């Protein structure tokens, strides 16, 4: 019998960045060896769980671990926030999926992360740094309390611009503000990598379009298998339709139809809301009956 089928994949460390964002470091030496910047995994947290795609935030080949940063927004991710403690196991973890990011010969690069997207842009920043590029990191958060990994980026990037919506840290404004700042200071930026919510990536693509900076975005649409079989993740890129799981997840941000992507992300919205509602209700019931309570 396959070990993985029985045993699952152990969570070896966990860090909570805020009341919604948390980090899991999972033991999987083979995956840690194979992972490259830009790739993702599919996780199933429990036997009855759904398969959710998560971009690989980091990997440590010596420790044999991969790092995932998760935002508790729906039923599955909130359940993971509640249940995935050090020593617990994920039922399924498969990857690395997708075509690795192409870290080419760019000499000066913007690595832009918005919210949760800050995590997956880290391996890219490190990759570019290792290839000898001058790396400008731009990180966006709603406020100071939601910030994470500023230290990691400071250690990797040649320059770092932090943006918060309310100005509680760094500059006040969106990451697009940071991009404008960087572009005005550096006239020779070759490439921009932007990862975050679709609306943020759309903004980034717009911000770089006029200066003609090649802009790569990482898309995370609804998918089931992650191996090219369901076609749920099809996205419009220029005139063509691509499957994000096997043709991406990286695409040319200037060609991606973000409006189409945003609508398609709402496909299962009604069912998802119902599931989250039910989950919240169960949590309230538990707290009333004295059962173990969720940290909320």
């Amino acid at each position, binding site marked *: 019998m396959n070990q993985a089928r029985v045993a699952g994949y152990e969570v070896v460390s966990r860090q909570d960045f805020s009341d919604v964002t948390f980090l899991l470091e999972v033991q999987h030496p*083979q995956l840690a060896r*194979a992972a490259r910047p830009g790739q993702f995994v599919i996780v199933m947290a429990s036997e009855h769980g759904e398969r959710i795609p998560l971009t690989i935030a980091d990997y440590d080949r010596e420790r044999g671990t991969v790092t995932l940063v998760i935002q508790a927004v729906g039923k*599955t991710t909130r359940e993971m926030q509640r249940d995935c403690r050090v020593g617990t196991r994920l039922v*399924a973890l*498969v990857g690395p999926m997708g075509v690795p990011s192409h870290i080419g010969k760019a000499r000066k690069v913007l690595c832009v992360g918005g919210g949760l997207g800050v995590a997956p842009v880290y391996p890219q920043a490190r990759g570019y740094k290792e290839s000898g590029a001058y790396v400008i990191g731009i990180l966006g958060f709603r406020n100071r309390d939601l910030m994470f990994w500023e230290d990691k980026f400071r250690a990797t990037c040649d320059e770092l611009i932090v943006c918060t919506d309310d100005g509680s840290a760094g500059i006040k404004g969106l990451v697009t503000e940071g991009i404008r700042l960087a572009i005005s200071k550096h006239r020779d930026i070759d490439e921009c990598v932007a990862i975050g919510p679709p609306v943020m990536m759309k903004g980034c693509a717009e911000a770089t379009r006029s200066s003609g900076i090649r802009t790569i975005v990482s898309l995370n649409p609804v998918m*089931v298998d992650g191996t*090219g079989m369901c076609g749920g993740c099809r996205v419009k890129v220029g005139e063509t*339709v691509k499957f994000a799981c096997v043709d991406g997840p990286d695409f040319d941000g200037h060609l991606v139809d973000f409006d189409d992507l945003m609508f398609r992300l709402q496909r299962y919205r009604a*069912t998802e809301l119902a599931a989250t509602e039910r989950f919240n209700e169960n949590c309230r019931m538990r707290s009333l009956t004295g059962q173990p309570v969720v940290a909320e």
Partner: protein
Amino acid sequence: MPGDARPKKKTIRMIPQARTPAHEQDPAERACNFDEVNLGYLIEDAQLEAERCLMCPEQPCVAGCPVGIAIPDFIQRITARDYRGAYDVITATNLLPAVCGRVCPQESQCEGSCTVGDTLEPVAIGRLERWVGDMAIRERWSNVPYIQPSGFKVGIVGSGPAGMACAADMAKAGCEVTVFEAFHEPGGVLKYGIPDFRLPNKVVDAEIAKLEALGIRFECNTLVGRLFTVEQMVEEMGFHAVFVGTGAGYPSFMGIPGESLNGVLSANELLTRCNLMHAREFPDYDTPLQPGRRVVVIGAGNTAMDALRVSRRVGAESVRCLYRRSRAEAPARAEELHHAEEEGIEFHWLASPVELLDDGKRNVRAVRCIRMTLGEPDASGRRRPVPEAGSEFEIEADMVVYAIGTNANPIIGQTSKLQLDQRGYIATDASLATSIPGVFAGGDIVTGAATVIEAMGAGRRAARAMKAFLGLRDTDHLYCDAAVEPGSRMFGIDRAERGFARIRVPR
């Protein structure tokens, strides 16, 4: 002594004239559940149907079977009430009788060439095979032969029918076999694709357990190509031979306007959510499925039938099938089509979609279609559908499912140097060897979408070639041919062959 001679040769007039019907769930009832539709035979049904085989000397059914099961032989054993014997005969060539008895298109294979079929309805070979397979599962029969370890490690990529068949043959040849599967459960299309009412997942699990009993290991959650490459398997991981059976799972769309609207999805997505991920049991399972009230499925193959019938079962009010040719050309098995009709599926033959219409909120509202007429036969031999000018009409739909075929899965092609053909399928020679020595491929990833039994047949053919490659003894393979130098023969056997006792001759 008279009367004690050989049994008289059966004639068509001596056998039961009517084909024994299988027990089936009532259409009205089954359209609301996922229990199996075809309940199969009882012992007396099997006995009666076995009587119908003429035991003709030509045995066209054996030639009609892609894996060449000794069909009259196993039927003969049913008649003799030697059921275990019947199972042994089938499993000598086909490891998964309970699966194949359910999902093979028998009408175009064994039953299609049955002699009885020239005059009456052919012998229900598929139902008999399934009956034997089910009995084996119930009685926990499995044929685990004595296996002499050969010392070879074999890796199989993909745990679908091709991979399973290849794995079984290689395990029996003494190899240490590991099957890699990207999903969290093994079985491939048998699990994610074919719904429970046609092939219950527990039947697939039972068959997989038999493969595990042969010593085969299944490693799930393993995406070969990305976690490690086929080249790494051969060069670094110590696999002496590799079989790639990753299937043709990449779904096709038509490229008409409106395909990115919400409510438009591939049959693969619908079926995977419902079958493997249990979306139909939401909220007990987390995977969502927004079932449509008015569903349109495009295509009329087996996958389309599955999508139609699944949609019906998850509660759609109307379920319609759109196909650009007529019923006669529909590629689905006759039984599936018949079952779908019984369950109240509406068929719109000779109609093709030209546009999917928006409700203003990016959800699909209707399908605009055009009527077709059949013209001259095309390359596939079927009459080419030609659109009729000015015949456009609309069908209301809040869910549109594409079941118009699939393409090669691209991952192995992206991650290895295996040579592909022009359409992206893996290029092989007649023995299913690929461009990398020791790597073989078979099933849909070589031929394009086909049937379960054809994939199994390919898995077995590849296994024969792998055995020859490894120098393992195989009754199908003649080692000592003229090409072998006399000096490298011993007692007429090629010295390169393994699995026979070696004798050292003193110099």
